[in-house]
């Protein structure tokens, strides 16, 4: 194992860890060392075993074999409480908040500040939470219930929670997947401050720019095993990717320009109380249009209203010239619209049901013969589409909950691509997807556009937006702030519109 400073004893080390779920061997001899005051990146393909490794560190899973050492001593983490008290704080890949409790209580559950007679001191708790949010630069009210927070806000609460623990080891499993550049920058400031105080950081991400910006060392995993550990400055991104996927990658954004065809989607004056106002735009066949903006700008809200998940208060939506009724996803699907939602666990998947059932759900009516579904057709369809997207799983009958995050995302994509849409709406399509698959998804989108599908893409990843879109619509505070053609769409231009600097300058 390539240790850089072998002399320094790691705060935490995982050695030769094995973990299997039924027939799936998620970890085979994985290892990791975290040092005080150092940010350590963990990268690998979807399903490489990163989250599993973290869950072992968090006390959620017990390893089948192998050791966890803390300060050189072997320890056994029976449950999450044990890990927390050992000083390990974890931000999980999927936010898990208490919707009925307030944001502040979410942060301090089980360790609320106490006043007289051991009663909870709410005022003190809210104060502390507010201070923390201040530090993270997020405008969240401590006393609002967590229910109804957007995915990004939820992720921020999770981050605040982990940071508030003041742990010796901070583990972050793709904390930035739902965040835009601004929040990411604030987060990195805070993490760097923690690191300076001697906290050991473990950072998982599929975004290499972030790895480079934040981390000192990087470990690559493949198929549940440790591949390499190096100082970040010693390896190139291409080299990392090669180690992760075991081959060279094609171009990241394989966008081939196509001549736009007829107008597929027309949105006119779309409004929804408190979420978005007076949004109008069109998408043509063969075109990829991106909706960009800061977190909470209302992008998801717009596409959900287009698809009919949410009823709209005002405005018209036309697909291929025909009006879509408000609040009726069935009509939208019939008209040839598909929506890959942003929150795969809540909106995209039936976690307890099998891969097959999930992958064929949107096509249940079309796969039926004489009104009846036989298992065979569904199985064949599911196998074909998941293979096309290179999804990794044990069996088609496994519950999707057992798939890794990225592979879950692929199942959602498979479900919708299988419907053969005329208008494909994707909301954060590559959230949590590894680079290799990302290329795959990009190629797919590009290919679909080339075949005459109209694509509307919401993405918080600016590079993706710039790399893929023919046109970029920028949203700010529920309104369309502007439109940029591919040629004019630079990082700077988008951010200006998104943050409203352009508007201020004009005024």
């Amino acid at each position, binding site marked *: 194992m390539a240790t850089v400073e072998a002399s320094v004893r790691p705060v935490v080390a995982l050695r030769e860890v*094995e973990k*299997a779920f*039924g*027939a799936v061997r998620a970890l085979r001899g994985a290892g990791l060392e975290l040092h005080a005051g150092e940010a350590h990146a963990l990268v690998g393909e979807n399903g490489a075993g990163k989250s599993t490794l973290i869950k072992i560190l968090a006390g959620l899973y017990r390893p*089948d*074999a192998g050791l966890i050492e803390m300060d050189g001593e072997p320890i056994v983490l029976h449950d999450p409480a044990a890990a927390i008290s050992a000083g390990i704080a974890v931000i999980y890949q999927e936010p898990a908040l208490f919707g009925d409790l307030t944001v502040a209580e979410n942060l301090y559950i089980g360790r609320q500040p106490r006043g007289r007679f051991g009663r909870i001191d709410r005022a003190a708790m809210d104060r502390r939470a507010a201070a923390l949010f201040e530090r993270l630069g997020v405008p969240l009210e401590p006393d609002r219930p967590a229910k109804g927070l957007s995915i990004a806000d939820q992720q921020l609460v999770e981050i605040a929670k982990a940071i508030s623990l003041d742990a010796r080891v901070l583990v972050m499993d793709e904390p930035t997947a739902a965040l835009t550049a601004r929040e990411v920058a604030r987060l990195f400031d805070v993490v760097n401050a923690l690191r300076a105080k001697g906290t050991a950081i473990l950072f998982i991400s599929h975004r290499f720019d972030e790895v480079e910006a934040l981390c000192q060392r990087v470990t690559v995993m493949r198929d549940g095993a440790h591949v390499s550990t190096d100082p970040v400055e010693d390896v190139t991104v291409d080299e990392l990717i090669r180690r992760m996927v075991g081959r060279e990658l094609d171009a990241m954004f394989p966008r081939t320009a196509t001549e736009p065809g007829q107008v597929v989607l027309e949105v006119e004056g779309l409004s929804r109380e408190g979420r978005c106002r007076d949004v109008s735009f069109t998408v043509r066949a063969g075109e990829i249009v991106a909706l960009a903006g800061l977190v909470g700008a209302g992008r998801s809200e717009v596409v959900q209203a287009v*698809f009919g*998940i949410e009823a709209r208060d005002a405005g018209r939506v036309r697909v291929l010239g025909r009006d879509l009724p408000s609040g009726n*996803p*069935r009509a*939208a*699907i019939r008209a040839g619209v598909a*929506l890959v*939602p942003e929150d795969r666990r*809540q*909106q*995209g*998947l*039936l*976690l*307890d*049901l099998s891969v097959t*059932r999930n992958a*064929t*759900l*949107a096509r*249940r*009516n079309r796969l*039926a013969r004489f*009104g*009846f*579904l*036989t298992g065979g057709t569904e199985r064949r369809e599911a196998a074909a589409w998941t293979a096309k997207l290179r999804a990794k799983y044990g069996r088609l009958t496994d519950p999707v909950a057992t798939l890794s995050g990225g592979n879950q995302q692929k199942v959602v994509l498979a*479900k919708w691509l299988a419907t053969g849409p005329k208008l494909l709406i994707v909301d954060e399509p590559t959230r949590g997807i590894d680079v290799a698959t990302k290329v795959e998804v990009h190629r797919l989108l590009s290919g679909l556009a080339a075949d005459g599908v109209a694509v509307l893409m919401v993405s918080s990843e600016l590079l993706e937006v710039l790399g893929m879109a023919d046109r970029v619509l920028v949203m700010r505070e529920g309104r369309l702030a502007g439109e940029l053609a591919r040629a004019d769409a630079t990082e700077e231009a988008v951010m200006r519109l998104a943050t409203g600097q352009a508007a201020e300058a004009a005024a």
Partner: protein
Amino acid sequence: MWNDAARRLLSWDAAVIAATVAFPLVAAQSVEHFGTARNAGHIIVDLAPVLLLALVMTLIVATGEIDLSVASTVGLTSAAMGVMWNGGVALETIMPLAVLLGALLGAVNGLFITGFGLPSLAVTIGTLALYRGLSYVLLGDTAVADWPRDFTGWTLGNIGGTEIPNLVIPMAALAIVVGLVLHATPVGRSIYAAGANDVAAAYAGIAVGRLKFWLYVASGAMAGLVGVFWTLRYSSARADNAYGLELTVVAVVLLGGVSIFGGKGNLPGVLAAVVLLTSLQNALRLAHVSTEALTVVTGALLIAAVLAPNLLAAAGDALRSRRRRTVAPS
């Protein structure tokens, strides 16, 4: 492969089905009078109401909801039948009207649950009281008993010359229809999807509210049908007919392996559970086991139904991980 087979074997509904097959064989040997055709007939007639109600209840529980008002709906349709009969309406008209009334009562549940978004447990506790109360309003303390023999006799009669009860035919037909709908149609897929995650189901274009609404209508209609059957089988329309039956129906659905949280379970398991529970109670009665024991056995069986597979799974996990640890390379 072996793993797959083992999992199927260990799966709960498979176990219930196996027990259902095995139990009567054992009981026929060890309990006097159990293994006669006549007794089998008794069992079938006995289980009919629970089985019929459990058919639709399975669908409802699979969507993650519940209907506690079924027994009260049976009571109310039965009471309404009595009123109509007293009013001189022809029985041939009364029967479809009773089913229609049931459907209407189900629609009221459905409206409250899907239209207003209220929790089904709360709503159907309310209509449990409401419908039972209304049946008392209709019939009060009287019973309507003078039902024509032609009809009451049919409910208990056998198919010409055999020992097979007439009831078997409609029950089997309904069970097959519901089974096919649940397991081999897009509607069935939608039901499981709605139970597993209603938000994701809505994103997949399933009109979850409408689906649930119609399931409640179906549940009500089925309860109306059971109301007709109950009235004729006991030749008595009374306000307290089928009192308390809802707990038995819920119990068999759960015993059959349907998850109370929705999204999981299948119909054969539930059918097996109905047969198992009824024949077990029948055998215990024939074996002179006391009523008290019968109550305890019912409850214990229900808990064991869910506990046993959990314990088996836990034991299996422990075994596997021990085996792995011993062969793991060090």
